[in-house]
Each structure stands twice: as structure tokens, then as C-alpha cells.
């Protein structure tokens, strides 16, 4: 790959904490290498701010290889920036050219209040999982791993859904701030496996109830979520969730 350097203008959302109002700040960053990752570019800016005694831009990040789901930036009108099936930390500066202006915003959804700058509170996701996103099996209860064969196609589909990293880009992209893609990935992951069958009905019902309580919207099947999902979870999982929910709701005796 050819490498080059560039000068950029960044407009970044700065907000002291949940209680205060925020605003955009403009920063010039120069000599950015095309080999840097997007977060490394922010690191460089932050180093500069810190040594000037200013507070650096706060953002969540950890693994920096697209798997922990921490990083969350809405970049120029797209969660995780311009690349397909990508996380912010995997975005590299060769996606930009000299003179570009980049606007960086936090995930926006009432269910994800801003904690500081680009950092938001996604604990609602954990509470949705608490509502039923698991298989109830205490340690020591398991039978031999090969006792139950699982159809490969189903196992693969289950895995494709289990790849969700809970970054919240689906919520950020959705006009309704719906958490359906996230939740449906969990429901599909577990209900496609024979182990997940016994709790199938209660799981989906309780998770949906929790999602509603957290203040996420409902799904209108527009597909914005699917288009930004770093792990390419499919919107058909949401349709599957609807099916699971209907059969749970319409067949229950109470």
C-alpha cells in the first residue's frame, strides 16, 4: 500500500457529563499518516490536548481489533464510519484524504445517555440479557458435549448471530433507536440450538419486555441497523424474533 500524510479538521462532540449540555469543538490535526487507525489519530490529538493541560476526548475502547464492542463513534453520519462490516477501531485513515472534515458524534438514543464526550451508557444491553439472554445451566449440570448432535447449518447460523459484539451501532443507526437487532441476535443464537429450546418462550417474552422498559423503539424493518452492523447480523433475525414472540405470546395458556 502507498502511504501518505494528511491534514484534517475534526468536529467532535464534547460534553462534560450526563447532566450538562454538550457542543461541538473543532480541532485541526496535521501530519496524520494513512497507516494510522482512526483511534490512533484520536490518540495523537488527545496527547496534544493533554500536554496542553486540556481534557482529552473521552471515548470507550479496549481491544482495538473489532471484537470487544467498546468503541462507539458516529463518524460523518454513520456509526463506525464509512467502511462496511467494520468497527471504529478497525477504521484506518487511508479512508480519508488531505483536507477532509470529519464530524464525530456519540451514539444518540435516550436509552444510551451520554456519560462524557463520545462515551455512552450501554448498560441497558446487560439488563436485556439479564431478562433471559442465557441458557439456565448451572456449572456441573452438563452432559457430554457430543451427546447431542447439532445440525451444522443451524450451528453455523447460531454462531453467525452469536458474533454480535453488543456495540450498539444498530441502535445508533435506527431511526427508532430500536435494540431489536442486538436482541434478536441473542434470541436467534440461543433458540437455534437444541440446548436453548426449553426456555425459548420465556426468553423472548422477557427480553422484549425489558427492551421496551429500557426505552428502545420498535422495529420498522428499514435495515439501517443491518447496513452498519460490524458483524453483519441480518435483519431476518428480527423477523425470527417476531416469530418466536408471536408463537410464545399466542400459544401461552395464561
Amino acid at each position, binding site marked *: 500500500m502507498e502511504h501518505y500524510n494528511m491534514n484534517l479538521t475534526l468536529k467532535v462532540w464534547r460534553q462534560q457529563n450526563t447532566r450538562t449540555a454538550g457542543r461541538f469543538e473543532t480541532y485541526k490535526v496535521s501530519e496524520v499518516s494513512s497507516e494510522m487507525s482512526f483511534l490512533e489519530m484520536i490518540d495523537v490529538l488527545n496527547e496534544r490536548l493533554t500536554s496542553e493541560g486540556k481534557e482529552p476526548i473521552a471515548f470507550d475502547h479496549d481491544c482495538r481489533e473489532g471484537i470487544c464492542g467498546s468503541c462507539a463513534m458516529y463518524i460523518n453520519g454513520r456509526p463506525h464510519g464509512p467502511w462496511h462490516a467494520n468497527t471504529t477501531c478497525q477504521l484506518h485513515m487511508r479512508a480519508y484524504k488531505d483536507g477532509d472534515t470529519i464530524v464525530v458524534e456519540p451514539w*444518540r438514543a435516550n436509552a444510551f445517555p451520554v456519560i462524557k464526550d463520545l462515551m455512552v451508557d450501554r448498560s441497558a444491553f446487560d439488563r436485556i440479557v439479564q431478562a433471559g439472554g442465557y441458557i439456565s445451566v448451572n456449572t456441573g449440570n452438563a452432559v457430554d458435549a457430543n451427546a447431542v448432535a447439532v445440525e451444522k447449518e443451524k450451528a453455523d447460523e447460531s454462531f453467525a448471530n452469536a458474533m454480535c459484539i453488543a456495540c450498539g451501532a444498530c441502535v445508533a443507526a435506527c*431511526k427508532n433507536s430500536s435494540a431489536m437487532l442486538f436482541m434478536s441476535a441473542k434470541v436467534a443464537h440461543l433458540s437455534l440450538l437444541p440446548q436453548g429450546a426449553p426456555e425459548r418462550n420465556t426468553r423472548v417474552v422477557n427480553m422484549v*419486555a425489558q427492551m421496551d422498559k429500557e426505552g428502545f*423503539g420498535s422495529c420498522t424493518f428499514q435495515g439501517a441497523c443491518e447496513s452498519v452492523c460490524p458483524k453483519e447480523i441480518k435483519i431476518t433475525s428480527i423477523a425470527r424474533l417476531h*416469530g418466536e414472540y408471536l408463537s410464545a405470546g399466542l400459544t401461552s395458556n395464561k
Partner: protein
Amino acid sequence: MKWSEFFTSSVGKKFVMGFTGLFLISFLVIHVGLNACIWANDNGVMFNKAAHFMGSMVVIRIMEVGLLAGIFLHAIQGLVLTAQNYKRRSVGYAVPMGNTGSPWYSRWMGLLGTLILLFLILHWYNFWIPSRFTGVEEVFIDNKPYDNLYGLMLLTFSNWWVVIVYVLGCISLAYHLMQGFHAAFKSLGFHNRKYLVVIRNVGNVFSIVVSGAFAMMPISMKLGWVS
């Protein structure tokens, strides 16, 4: 799970939307089929007869009530959902996503639906109220009296602005259905990817053909393609 829980959950509400939506679609099929009789070019004989036949069937009269209820349920639920969903994000983005992740009409279902509703009000005022309540001029076919709905159409569509409003209504419907058709299946839990591709294509064709056919009716009349 209690009914109340079911229907107040976000998925339950979408179930109502999808169910009523598909019900309305099925009505559209009948409606477009019936109205297409105007193109028989027999001075409305076939059309008036067909309309009469429908109007005199008890089943259809019962379904009409269901239809009205369906439309209102669909419209109210749809607007409520749109409003609720809108409130989920109090602070918006400085740079909106626009059409990069979804087609514009999928995000404007509430607006498209409202346009359809406005159109429907006009539509009822033009046809349904006269036919059910205030009465329509009669015409004799084979010595039997029939409501001359055909004549009413000719009269109504002699007006340019009515034609334009109807065409706009049909365009709204087309876009509403391009998103609505496949979404309704998904809302009802249909998730087989292979079939969903088919549904999507059928939906697009359906939306354009049906809405197009409706739109051609006032145009045909205004331009005198049928007489």
C-alpha cells in the same frame, strides 16, 4: 402472557400493524379488481353490476365494518408507533444518516400513511358516503335499478384537482407498500431468507402495479379513455 401484555409490547404492536396491513392489502386486491371493470368500456355496465353484487353480499358488508376498523386500527397504531419511536431520540445527529442505510420511504411510513389517510377521507367523501348513506343516482341495466357509481366516478374525475389528489394518493400508497409489503411479513415472523427475497420482489411489483392501476382510473376518466 396476558393479551394486554401482548398487544402493548413493541412486537405485539407490530403484529397488529402487519396483520392489519396485510388485511388492507387483501382488500386492495379485491378493490382494484373490481374497479378495473371500468376498462370494460361498456359504459360502466360491468362495473356497476359488480359493485352492486359486492354491496349486496352480507359477508362483504360485515367485512366492510372490519375494514373500517382495520384502517383505523392501522392508522392509529401506526401514528402512535411513529410518535413513540420518534421520542426515543431526544438529541438528534448533526450529520444524519440519510439514505445510506435505508430507502427514504421506509423512514417516512408515518407521513406516507397520513397522506393516504387524507386521500381516503376525500375518497370516502366522494364515493363511500354517497353510496352508503346519502344515495347515488340510479341507472337501469336490464330493467333493474343499479347505483350509478360509474357515473359518479365520471363526474368526480372531471375535476383536475381531484385527479391530481388521487394520483398523489396512489403514489403515497405505492411507496407505503414498497416498504409495507415485505415488512408485514417480517412483522408476522416470516424469516426464511430465500422466500423473503421473493416476497420483496413480489411486494415491489405489487406496489407499483396496484397503485399504478388505481392511479390510471381517474386519469383514464379525465382523459376520456373510457366513456
